[in-house]
């Protein structure tokens, strides 16, 4: 059985973690009251911990137990200031790591965070370093959420610097999810957030369940780590569940790789470095020839593809995890962030100059009373 640590850092990470806990109660169909009469049912031994400097963000969680909410005391958040966030982490590092240590040893840790916020973007790189330092054999996967582009220059700036730091740490890889890309799933921002959170939570749990299941065709944590080490060590996930009209497994695999089912905009055929296809469904739907053909087709472009087949009653479900050899969308974000930072800098310089000019009017004057 896998020992899995799920850390939700910052407001975004907390909410995705809460969505995972909700999924553990039975997914989207679970009632809000499910926590009163059900126990969360994770496929493996999963320990969750929501970490935040803003206590109000922690209070908003609904499906995460109180003991799994860790407030790092720093007034009410870090105000999107990563420097303050880093300082807060360092000051509370022992307390944070102590809380994690209480939960035992782990084979894999998922650090779920937004790249743009204050707490998550600043805590996560430092936290990954601490996890790697404290747990020698742990595989750390960062689930990084990219912001809406229109959220503001600070968030873009934070995303840019945070991504760079996440790339620099010794983690097994980063699974990207792009809010901007997934916004299309819903008309309004609030419901988009919920859907994105649920989607990410559902896929992560599917992944954990698959890695810890007896498979017809085996993929395991080692395969997953290999996939995540491929390319830029930045990847994403696709998911597709066949509908009753089309139960073709081949179509389902191909659909899971289509841009519309990915968390991050990527062209699998062009950009994928390594991939893992996990197929789950009733035995009658699992046509191995079809699966093999689909995987071979993917392998032709993605290099190496691990496949895992889990026999479980139901329509076919496909989870595809792949790493990217290139990430042009990231470059766009950095360019946009740089522009925003430049604009911010110019605005600040201009404002400073205006202020200095204003102050110049009274430079030689004394206060007279």
């Amino acid at each position: 059985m896998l020992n899995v640590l799920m850390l939700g850092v910052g407001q975004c990470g907390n909410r995705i973690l809460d969505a995972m806990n909700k999924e553990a109660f039975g997914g989207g169909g679970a009632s809000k009251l499910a926590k009163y009469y059900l126990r969360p049912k994770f496929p493996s031994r999963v320990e969750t911990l929501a970490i935040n400097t803003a206590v109000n963000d922690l209070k908003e969680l609904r499906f995460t137990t109180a003991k799994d909410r860790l407030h790092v005391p720093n007034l009410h958040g870090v105000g999107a200031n990563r420097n303050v966030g880093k300082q807060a982490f360092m000051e509370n590092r022992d307390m944070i790591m102590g809380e994690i240590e209480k939960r035992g040893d782990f084979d894999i840790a998922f650090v779920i965070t937004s790249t743009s916020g204050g707490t998550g973007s600043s805590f996560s790189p430092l936290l990954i370093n601490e996890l790697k330092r404290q747990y020698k054999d742990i595989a750390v996967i960062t689930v990084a959420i990219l912001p809406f582009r229109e959220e503001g220059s600070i968030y873009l700036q934070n995303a840019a610097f945070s991504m760079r730091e996440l790339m620099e740490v010794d983690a097994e890889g980063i699974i990207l999810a792009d809010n901007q890309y997934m916004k299309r799933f819903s008309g309004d921002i609030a419901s988009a957030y919920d859907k994105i959170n649920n989607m990410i939570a559902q896929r992560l749990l599917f992944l954990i369940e698959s890695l810890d299941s007896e498979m017809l065709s085996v993929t395991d944590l080692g395969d997953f780590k290999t996939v995540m080490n491929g390319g830029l060590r930045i990847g994403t996930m696709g998911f597709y569940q066949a509908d009753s009209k089309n139960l073709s497994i081949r179509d389902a695999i191909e659909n899971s790789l289509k841009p519309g089912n990915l968390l991050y905009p990527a062209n699998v055929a062009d950009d994928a470095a390594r991939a893992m296809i996990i197929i789950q469904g009733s035995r009658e739907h699992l046509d191995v020839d079809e699966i093999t053909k689909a995987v071979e087709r993917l392998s032709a472009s993605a290099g190496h593809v691990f496949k895992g087949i889990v026999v479980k009653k139901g329509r076919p479900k496909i989870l595809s995890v792949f790493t990217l050899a290139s990430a042009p969308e990231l470059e766009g974000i950095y360019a946009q962030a740089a522009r925003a930072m430049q604009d911010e800098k110019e605005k600040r310089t201009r404002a400073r100059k205006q202020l200095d000019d204003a102050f110049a009017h009274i430079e030689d004057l004394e206060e007279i009373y």
Partner: protein
Amino acid sequence: MMYNYGVLGMKASSYRLGLICLLLYVLLIGAACAAKSDEEDEDEITFRDFSLNIGDRINLDDYQMELIEIQSLRDGLVVLRVSRVGGSLDEQRALLLDSPNNFDGGAEKGGVTITITDIFDEQSARVRLEYEQKLGTPRKRASDRPAAMPEKPELLVQKSFDRNEMHVGDEVKVTITIRNTGTGTANDIDVQDIPPLPEFTYIAGYPPKIKETLDSGQSDSAVYILNAAREGSVQIPAVVVSYADSKKNSKSNSSEPFSIIIRPKSKADLVINVEDTAPLVLDEEGLLNISISNQGSASATRIEATGEVSPSDGLEIKGLDKSFFEIPPGDAANFSASISGHKRGIYTIRLKVSYDDGDGSVIREATSRAVVLKREYKYQYLLVIIPIIIVSAWIYRRHREYKY
């Protein structure tokens, strides 16, 4: 009126002398008459009464009279001894009451006449002595001998019933006791009990037999048995005992009359008390407490208690049929019967008790009610409350678990 002494001076001295001579003559005549009457007084007969005890004497001149005994109070006979110094007279004679007795010719002839005027008791009597005055004054001399204790029987009679209240049909024991509390023997004792009273039938021992003779201090009693026959208040008349002392003096005494009450014939009266039982639950056992008390005045015998239940099925009773030999008056027989209900409903338990009340067979009945209820599930509400509590506790616990 004024006298003229001057004219009449010579004549007054002669008148005075004549008057003196007249007075002297009268005096002389008177003295002569007085001397003659003295001579006549000495022959005059006088009398004097004396109260004498036995042994007392009266001395008159040469005569000596002594009370010897009271021979018979009833007959009025007193023995008196009269003697004369010199022995010319020494006679002991029984004198009859109120009859003068002459000695030496009686008082008329210079002797004495003695009359017993009263006999006080067997020790004393009043004696009248008549004599000529010339014999002098009689003197009484009390006897130096101690007074002899008289033999005087005194019988006390007592009649008693062994109880003052009884019922018709009850036997009662009558005791007649005669006790001689006197100093002499009572002879010819005869007890006269009133002839049989109509309120009683005489069973045994009547008429009572008492000894004919009872010495001083002795007592005798007789018992006879009656049976009260008629109710009412009965005045029991006195018993009269007659007897005679050693001198054949007849005496009698009687007991005090008293009354007794004869109540109506005593009967047993059984009162049955069957306690209503508390409502029973189906198949639950309960106790039916029964008390048969005798509130009559006689014992009830051959008591048989039998019970029946209506409706006959659905209520089972064990131990309701009982029999007792006797229940004395004021006593009670208590017993319990176990009941168990097998069908819900209201049942009537009828207890019939037959017994002999002393005058015949009597039947008494009493009823009680038993209610058999549907089975009650006492803590049924817990089936609702406990799950609610558990669920509430669980929800609260989970709420606390998720409350931040």
